[in-house]
């Protein structure tokens, strides 16, 4: 069963003269362990797709299912629990809480979910460590560089027992080595069964995905086929 399923999802912002059709009849299914990258020009609806998948916004029409459950049929509390427990979200603008340190930002969702403070903190430190940020755990967001803030946001999204990871430009502010570390981390999460949707402008980041879909004007216009194994690159006369 797919972790995320979007069926004929459309999203219209505003009405009349100011109406913007951000998504049109989008279908998408992401299975456990699968990473899907979403590419497309600015304004093509990538972030809209992600906020709807993460239940932060409701679609104008169509259906969204997470873990088999219809979001439209869930209560506010159920949605809040889903977001806290099962869905990790990396926002395009990070969205860290300014009054909390890096490790507090990461461990907050675990604590809210009932984990003892000490264990939540330990999990938070471990997640920061994997992103090379152990020595920044006590810093507040305004004491971190842009790239460090981004990594804290990623640590927060992968910590705990997430089934769906939604990331909006997770490598946007990062140099290529750090960007690669982030994509490896998301890949690792997928190897443990997490389903991930990663929005990115960057082809190198997208190339970590199992499948890449292309959005234009709110529609999915194209997608990659499952690639053959890397052996084909080394075969003589393989088009190099």
């Amino acid at each position, binding site marked *: 069963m797919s972790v995320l399923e979007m069926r004929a999802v459309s999203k219209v912002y505003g009405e009349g003269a100011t109406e913007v059709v951000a998504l049109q009849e989008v279908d998408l299914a992401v299975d456990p362990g699968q990473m899907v990258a979403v590419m497309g020009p600015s304004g093509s609806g990538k972030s809209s797709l992600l906020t709807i998948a993460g239940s932060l916004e409701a679609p104008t029409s169509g259906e969204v299912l997470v873990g088999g459950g219809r979001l439209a049929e869930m209560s506010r509390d159920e949605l809040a629990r889903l977001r806290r427990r099962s869905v990790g979200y990396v926002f395009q603008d990070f969205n860290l809480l300014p009054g909390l340190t890096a490790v507090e930002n990461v461990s907050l969702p675990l604590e809210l979910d009932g984990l003892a403070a000490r264990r939540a903190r330990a999990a938070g430190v471990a997640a920061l460590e994997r992103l090379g940020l152990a020595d920044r755990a006590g810093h507040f967001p305004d004491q971190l560089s842009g790239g460090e803030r981004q990594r804290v946001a990623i640590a927060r999204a992968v910590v705990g027992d997430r089934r769906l990871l939604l990331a909006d430009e997770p490598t946007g502010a990062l140099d290529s080595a750090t960007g690669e570390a982030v994509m490896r981390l998301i*890949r690792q999460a997928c190897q443990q069964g997490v389903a991930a949707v990663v929005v990115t402008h960057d*082809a190198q980041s997208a190339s*970590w995905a199992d499948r*890449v879909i*292309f959005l234009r004007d709110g529609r999915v216009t*194209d997608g990659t086929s499952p*690639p053959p194994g*890397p052996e084909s*690159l080394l075969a003589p006369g393989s088009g190099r």
Partner: protein
Amino acid sequence: MSIRHALLALLAEGPKYGLQLREEFESRTGEVWPLNVGQVYTTLQRLERDGLVESDGAAEGPQKSFHLTEGGAGELAEWLRTPPDLSSPPRDELVIKILVAVRLPGVDVHEVIQAHRRFLIELMQQWTRLKNDEADFDLSLALVVDAELFRLDSVIRWLDAADGRIRRAPADAPAGKPAVALRRKIGVRR
């Protein structure tokens, strides 16, 4: 990549046999460039003719060992610092296809661009998978894979830029005399 200079580099470490040179060339380049033994021997013959390597002369064929001469060492040092030829005029096949697609009636250039974009991303996925699987263990392979990924990435970025530029351009833009203008600007002579 110049096989000639790769062989000089391997011989800079000490005398070697032809077969050994082939194996080392392949392993040092992440086994991404297969090389046949014939290519190795023809290249060695030319290097010997030019005085850049010498053979021990005694045996023939696989028993023959080669070493670098002083001239060869100088050639190698100079090659390392010589910029590769990146200044050639734009004659890239993909660029030409897009230029043709823009003007060809009945062809949706954006659809052509997307087909190439998808193909390139699929290629990048294959390279990235290689990096994910084994590059941690092999520095040469990781360096080669990165180079390939950056190269393909730059092509995709160009396609994205072209896509946007074509969308913004007025539909009935005159063809003008771009070739002449460009030649004059970048100083290319016929």
